[in-house]
């Protein structure tokens, strides 16, 4: 999928563990793991809002679009 989730990068920048984020956002660890590993098919605006609020960032910091055709080999 051309949409990349950079949640782990933002977590590392904020020095926050998955457990801590899970507690603060109110999502289960398994759901956060699905999101982090890029297996998620969709993200609710409410979830994105909470993550941005907790990590103090913009949606663009978490989500990134990479054109697979232009992607260097």
């Amino acid at each position, binding site marked *: 999928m051309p949409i990349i989730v950079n949640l782990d990068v933002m977590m590392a920048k904020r020095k926050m563990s998955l457990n801590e984020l899970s507690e603060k956002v109110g999502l289960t660890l398994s759901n956060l793991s*699905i999101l982090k590993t890029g297996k*998620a*098919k969709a993200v*609710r605006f409410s979830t994105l809002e909470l993550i941005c609020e907790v990590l103090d960032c913009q949606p663009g910091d978490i989500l990134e679009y990479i054109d697979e055709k232009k992607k260097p080999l």
Partner: protein
Amino acid sequence: MSKTNNFVFWCLYVIAWIIFVGLSIEAGGLIVNFFFSLYKPEFVQNLYQKLDLTEMYKASKLAFFGIYSFILIISILKACLLYIIIRLMHTMNLSKPYNTFVARQISKICYYTISIGILSYIAVQFTKNLMHHGFVPNDLDRFWADSEACIFMGAVIYIIGTIFKKGVDIQNENDLTI
């Protein structure tokens, strides 16, 4: 799920088991009949359903094996169909039925039903054709399923299966929405 529905489901499960056992006995009995008609035809009168086609065997082996193939394949397919239904009912979680296993089982039920219907139709035509050629097969109608009903039922199950597959896709997407 309501208690009534649960009760109906369990009743159907028990009925499916009873039918499966009956059909398995029938298929097994017919297989035994087949071998006895080949190697010990005089003993067939004592066997299940007394299906004696020895006269046909003497007249034409092709007709004999043709008719017996249809009888055996249809009876085995019926038993397999009930086995799939039992497996589906046994494994299915009524509170969360939308998964790929159930969708696959429904597709299998559809294919088996249509196969039984088509084979029964061909078998009926084959028997009619044999009558034209002078063979008088004894009461064989009881071995054929109602072909039109089976094909119609298969088509209905196919539509339900397609809708179910879409439901599974939606469920998967919903599960992966965070």
